[in-house]
Structure formats: structure tokens, C-alpha cells
């Protein structure tokens, strides 16, 4: 479903991803683990099209289509969703307005009917209750004054409402206490289905106790250096990334 081949990405003039290849079949959850600076966030930004993250070589096919040729909003309309490590605060735009604008923009791009205000409210009430979010909070400007945990729940709420088919979670567990982590993980697990692919980017194994991956990939210095089953995450937790790091000369 997602096929990344020999991807090279530079930020400014600095190469960050250096020949990354990865396949995520439909219905599977793949974890990408790696030390700081390995290029984990860069992978999420490159797949979602953030300006300044330039693919200099390689290809990304999503449902058979060249993902790198599309604008960020077009990728979103085709189902790509990045849950940000640090969700952005947008003063002056109520969270509800923001999500509805996004949902209807995606629907327009796909040639579908827009969602009416009452139908949207009904959707949001159900989704926010499932995430144990205070509905009134959604009338406030997006993420402004939200705690770290509230911001992450807001990301998952958007995910639930936008129903993407490629979910990229960038360090979704950072800043979450154990209760919030469980709620967020439940929200993500509820999205698992045979038509969706998920890429869970994380430094620590902890998140993978809650969102169980089918495959685990180790990202070091811009490349996948090892892949395996869920047991690989436990091995990394016990032994660290040292064995994969280049030996100092």
C-alpha cells in the first residue's frame, strides 16, 4: 500500500534520509524506531510534503500513485495524515472550525458532498466522548492553552474525524502520562482496519505495548538497518541502539 524506495531527503543542504526503503501493506502497523537524529521526524515530514524537506532521490508510491508529486493538501485528501510530535497552536481559529474546514476541503478535493454543520457536530460529539475530551474545549482556538496531553488527544480526534488511510504517528507518546497514553492508544487502535496502513514513529518501546506493530524497523543515520517482528522492539529496549551505530574510528 505504501512503498518507499531508496528515499533520499535533504533539509537545507544537509542529507538526512540516505536511501530509505520500506513497504507497509494494507492493514498493517509498522513501527519505525531509532535514536535521536536518525531522521524519524524527517520521514514523517517528507511523506506529508512539508516545504523544506526535499526528496533528492528515490520514490514513494501510495496506492500506486507518486506521492512526492502531490501538494501537501492533495496528499491529505488522498488519506495521508501526520500526527505531529508538537501540534501547532493556531490563535483565532476555533478547533471545531478548523476540523470542519479541513474535512470539507478534503471532501471537495475527492468530489464528495460536504458535511453539514449539524451532522458534523454529531460526529464530533461522539468522537470527543470516546477520547474523554471536554466538548467545550473544541470551541477554543486550536491547541492554544491546551496541555501536552490535550494536544495529542486533539490529534487523535482529527484522525478519527478525517478517517485517513495512511496514519503516520510521530512520537505520539511524548508528553503523555500513562492514562492519556492508554486513551490515545485506544483511539489509534480503533482505527486499525484492513484498508489502513500505519507508520508509528517512536524512540521508545513503551508506545508499542499499547499499539502493537506487525513489523518493527530500525532507522539509524537515515537508513533502515534492521527489520523484524514485534520482538525487535523489546530487544532494542533491552540493548539500545548502540549495536547499529557506526563504530567510532
Amino acid at each position: 500500500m505504501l512503498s518507499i524506495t531508496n528515499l533520499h531527503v535533504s533539509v537545507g543542504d544537509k542529507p538526512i534520509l540516505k536511501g530509505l526503503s520500506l513497504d507497509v501493506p494494507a492493514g498493517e502497523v509498522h513501527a519505525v524506531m531509532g535514536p535521536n537524529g536518525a531522521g524519524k521526524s524527517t520521514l514523517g515530514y517528507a511523506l506529508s510534503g512539508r516545504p523544506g524537506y526535499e526528496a533528492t532521490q528515490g520514490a514513494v508510491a501510495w496506492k500506486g500513485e507518486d506521492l512526492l508529486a502531490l501538494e501537501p493538501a492533495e496528499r491529505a485528501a488522498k488519506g495521508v495524515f501526520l500526527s505531529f510530535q508538537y501540534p501547532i497552536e493556531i490563535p483565532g481559529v476555533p478547533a471545531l472550525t478548523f476540523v470542519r474546514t479541513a474535512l470539507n476541503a478534503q471532501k471537495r478535493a475527492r468530489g464528495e458532498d460536504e458535511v453539514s454543520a449539524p451532522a458534523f457536530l454529531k460526529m464530533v460529539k461522539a468522537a470527543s466522548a470516546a477520547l474523554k475530551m471536554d466538548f467545550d474545549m473544541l470551541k477554543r482556538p486550536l491547541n492554544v492553552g491546551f496541555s501536552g496531553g490535550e494536544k495529542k488527544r486533539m490529534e487523535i480526534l482529527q484522525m478519527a474525524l478525517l478517517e485517513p488511510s495512511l496514519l503516520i504517528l510521530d512520537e505520539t507518546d511524548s508528553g503523555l502520562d500513562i492514562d492519556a497514553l492508554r486513551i490515545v492508544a485506544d483511539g489509534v487502535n480503533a482505527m486499525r482496519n484492513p484498508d489502513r496502513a500505519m507508520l508509528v514513529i517512536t524512540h521508545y518501546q513503551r508506545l508499542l505495548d499499547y499499539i502493537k506493530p506487525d513489523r518493527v524497523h530500525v532507522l539509524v543515520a537515515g537508513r533502515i538497518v534492521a527489520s523484524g517482528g514485534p520482538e525487535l522492539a523489546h530487544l532494542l529496549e533491552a540493548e539500545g541502539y548502540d549495536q547499529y551505530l557506526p563504530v567510532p574510528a
Partner: protein
Amino acid sequence: MNAPVRIDLKDASSFPSRRVEAWKYSDLRKFLRETPEPSAAAQVTGEGPFAALGGEMLAFANGRAVGADAFVASGEQTLRLRFVSDAVNTGHTASVRIAVRPGARLLLLESHEGAGSAYVAHNRIDLDVADGAEVTRIVLADEPDDVLAITNAEVRVAPGGRYRQTIVTTGAKLQRQETQLAHAGAGADVRMDGLYLLDGARHADLTSVVDHLGPDGVTSQLTKGVVRDTARGVFQGKIVVERGADGTDARMGHHALILGERAEVDAKPELIIYADDVQCAHGNTVGNLDAAALFYLQQRGIPLDEARALLTEAFLVEVIDRIEHDGAREVVREWLTARL
């Protein structure tokens, strides 16, 4: 304090050039060297942008009063003040006097409605806010991009008066909205805001002088602007605290987004303080839309142009949210949204 320039359309020597300090960013003489031919009579049609809010109407067509040219407010009243221009290559001056009786409340809804081209519109407003009276003045200026339009409002706020002003404009070839306000203090409370949204080669100048003459006066000023293409926004805000005006609390903010590489914003905030015990502050920022926020919106599926418009509206809406009157606030919000 320097006396403001008195423009007289019949006297070309009264047209200020950029050599006059208060007009250095808005060089009227560059565009107007000779006395324009007087505009012919014109009709006022429709009800104006504030039609939905009803009230009395005072209208000027090419400078001529359609009915009365003065208004005295008592009790609680709404007045739509309409400056309608429909002229080509000619000039006109409108003068209006408004007095608000002690304790009265006036919602003053002012519109500058332009049709035609290359005209010169000059408006003079004289507004008296008596003891304990309250005035909310909302200005919507919507004029062609090739006209010159100068409005000068002289406002006097008596002790205990409340004055709320919000000027919203899309500019013109050269447009200036000037407010000279004499602030008596003694509990008088002034909020004076502005908003400009300029594209093409439009120019808007929001200039104000608030003169705190007595003690314990409050002034709060917030102006926000967005300039695109080669447009130019000018903000000149001066607050003077005279000797003896102790206990004055005055705050001024001006914040602008420059969205065109050749667009320009000139800001000149001034605080001139002759009293000792005062609280005064001003802040001024000029920037661009936040790239991280723009990407976040796009990642959620909002196309770039729509994302820009949404963030621009979010930036400007703070000014509109300060309008206390619900109906007027909604009219202004819709007016702005339609122009984003």
C-alpha cells in the same frame, strides 16, 4: 502639539506633501497638485452596508447633505452615517456635526461607499461626546483603487464619557482616516481600533492623536493590518499625556502581516508624556504568516490559498472581536470575510 493640517479642496496650497512630518508616508501632493473640479450632484441608492441594523440615516452624496448635515443624539440611538461618492475626476467635501447629549448612547455606523473613479473625497466629522455619554463608531471604507479619500474626525470626549471606535478599510489609491481625540479623563474611557486589508497598489493610512487633558483617563488602541502585492499600510498613533493628566492608562498596539514581497508597512507609534504617574505602553510587530501553522493546515487537507486566508482572518479577527455590539460585530465580520 502641532495643529493638524487643514485640507481645503479649493486651495491647492493646503495639500500636504511628504515634507510635512504628519504626512510623510502619505504624500497627497504627489497625486493631487491642483484643485479638482467640483463633483456634480449624485444620488444615494440602497441602504448601505449597515442596512440590517436600522436606525436613523445621515447621508452625503458627493459631499452634499441629502437631508440634514447635523445630528443630536439623546437616549439610545443608532445613526447610519453614509458618505457616498459617485464621481469621475472631480472632488467634493462633506462636513458633518454630531453631538451626543449627556448620558446618551449612540451607535454610529459610518460607511464610505465609492463608485466611479479618480475622484477626491474629503470628509470632516465633528463629534462631541458629552459627560457620561457613550459612542460606538464603526467605520467601513470600501472605495475604488484609483481614488483619493481623506477623512478627518475631531472627537471630544467629556469626563466620564465612553468612546469606542473601529475603522475597517480596504484602502484606495491614497486613503487616510485621521482621528484627533481630546480626552478629558476623569473616568473617560476610549478604545480606538483599526484594521486594514490591502491588495494591489492600495494605500491606507490610519492616523490618530489622543490627547489626555485630564487625570484618570483610559485609552486602549489596537490596530492590525495585512498588506499584499505592492500595497502600503500606514499606522501613526500618537498618545499625548498632558501635564496634570496623572493616573492615565494608555496602551497602543499595532501589528501587521506583510504578504507581498513588495508590500510595505510604515508604523510610527508615539507616546508623549508630561505627567508623572501614568501607565503607558506600546507594542509594534510586523511579520509574515507562520510557516509551521500554514503547513499544519495544509497537512489536514486545507489548500494553500485557503490556509492563508484562514490564518489571515484569524490574525485580524482580534480587532473585530473587540466590538461589543453584537449586530455591528457580525456585519463587520461578514464584510471582512467577503474580502479575504
